[in-house]
């Protein structure tokens, strides 16, 4: 379980203080798939970096499985438990062969060679990249590179994976690959997923959506609840899935449609 208790975070010194997160309290249970949605500058990436102790709260406390993220005796275990996948695939690949890149983490944990081999093979199989194990990562597509980055995190055997806008630099096909992979990791392998995004369609696939605005939690609920009020979502700068917008337009044109519609297929079913 990940627990934030009254967490605030300030960037800069006392004179030029930017209050990125203000008094956030949030609990994420094991096995959840939580999307964190918010406009640029709402505090999403700061929140991600607080989860595994890359940043320490200015006030309050962050706990991963009961251990504080600032406890120096726990921080290495927390970083092994909480894997991160960042926005730019080119910034997180360091080796010249896919399998070497994935092996970097377990090597640094001091695993036995046979164990490293097994972990790398398994991680690459999970993300569907085993056939490209010997490729040069720089020749891969964006979606493939991000899957290598995910495999690198998986090789650490994490309980939690945090995706910090991991799809925003990808084309639609790459985006689909990553979204499908995260869903599989959650449903088949029980990994808790924290999926940070500003794309409403992606957030709509999560079980729970937390909306950040100006460093505070503005909404926290199911995607249906969060996207039910189109105007409120616009005011928070997050937008809603396009299908929801179409349904909203039809509602205003006098057609009776449930407010919970988030996909075109749901909309077609409601109209037929």
């Amino acid at each position, binding site marked *: 379980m990940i627990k934030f208790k009254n967490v605030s975070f300030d960037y800069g010194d006392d004179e030029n203080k930017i209050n990125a997160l203000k008094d956030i309290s949030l609990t994420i249970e094991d096995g959840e798939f939580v999307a964190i949605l918010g406009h640029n500058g709402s505090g999403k990436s700061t929140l991600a970096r607080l989860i595994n102790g890359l940043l320490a709260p200015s006030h309050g406390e962050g706990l991963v499985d009961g251990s504080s993220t600032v406890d120096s005796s726990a921080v290495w275990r927390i970083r092994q438990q909480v894997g991160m996948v960042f926005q730019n695939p080119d910034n997180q690949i360091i080796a010249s062969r896919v399998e070497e890149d994935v092996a970097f983490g377990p090597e640094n944990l001091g695993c036995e060679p046979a164990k490293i081999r097994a972990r790398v093979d398994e991680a690459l199989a999970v993300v569907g990249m085993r056939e490209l194990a010997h490729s040069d990562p720089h020749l891969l597509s964006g979606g493939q590179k991000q899957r290598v980055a995910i495999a690198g995190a998986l090789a650490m055997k994490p309980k939690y994976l945090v995706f910090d806008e991991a799809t925003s630099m990808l084309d639609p*096909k790459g985006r689909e690959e990553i979204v499908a992979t995260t869903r599989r990791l959650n449903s088949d392998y029980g990994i808790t997923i924290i999926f940070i995004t500003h794309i409403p369609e992606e957030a709509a696939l999560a079980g729970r959506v937390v909306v950040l605005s100006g460093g505070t939690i503005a909404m926290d609920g199911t995607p249906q609840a969060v996207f039910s009020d189109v105007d409120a979502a*616009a005011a928070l700068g997050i937008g809603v899935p396009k299908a929801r917008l179409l349904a909203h337009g039809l509602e205003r044109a006098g057609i009776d449609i449930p407010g919970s519609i988030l996909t075109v297929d749901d909309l077609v079913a409601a109209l037929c």
Partner: protein
Amino acid sequence: MLIEMAKVTFEYLPGTPLAHTALSDIDLSISEGDFIALVGPTGSGKSTLIQHLNGLLTPTSGSLSFRGRSVGSDVGLLELRREIGLIFQFPESQLFEHTVADDIGFGLRQQGLAGPEVASRVEDALLQVGLDYAHYAQRSPFSLSGGEQRLVAIAGVLAMRPQFLVLDEPTSGLDARGKEAIFDCLDRLNSEGVAILMVTHSMDEVAESARRIIVLNEGKIVLDDKPEGIFVHASFLREIGLDIPKAAELVFKLREKGFNIQPDNVSMRSVVASVAAAVKERCAN
């Protein structure tokens, strides 16, 4: 005619085992005031094509002309690049000066323009992207949000007063507000007579803004039409790995269910109106 490409073919690494034809036999005319979206799957040649537009790449064969004058012989590359502004993906990564005003004015100073002229053009450029001069000019570009940084980078190109603006994925990575700001800016520029060509993956954006869509696949232009004429080819677009706008997808799926809706509806507004009418007609029967 602003730009005319005739039988343009471009090959990377010609004469080597890695030779790869990125564009083949492209015929393309772009008029003054056009607002074009260039779409296509990854590797279809979009980036190669736009790099031809301001002479960063020159055709392996075929020719390019700017306002009827042949590029390379009648029009020099310097002139071409002044008239045609190219904005790369994530242009904010090219910001480097201490202040927003200095960053936008950099190109102008390189051209040797005098201080007052630079200052007035910087002010105009900020106005064009919708940022207030007094509030932004003296700030560090690195203290701005991602969306604001992108607008400043675009202003740096606008300060050169191009007649034609070419943008590679101008909204990628931006939130809903940032995207809106970019489109407001592009619409405004276009209404002032600047031709726009943007590369994008977002079909929803394309349907709302562009007046002409060019679809590239495997280095060839496969469709070139108004948005209404493009999305009727929904199955073909899916086949080559492209999305269709959610609004067009709704029309497509309802038509399959027997709804009486014209297939050439693409924008949100017109789809909502025609779907509402069709649903009411069905209920009445």
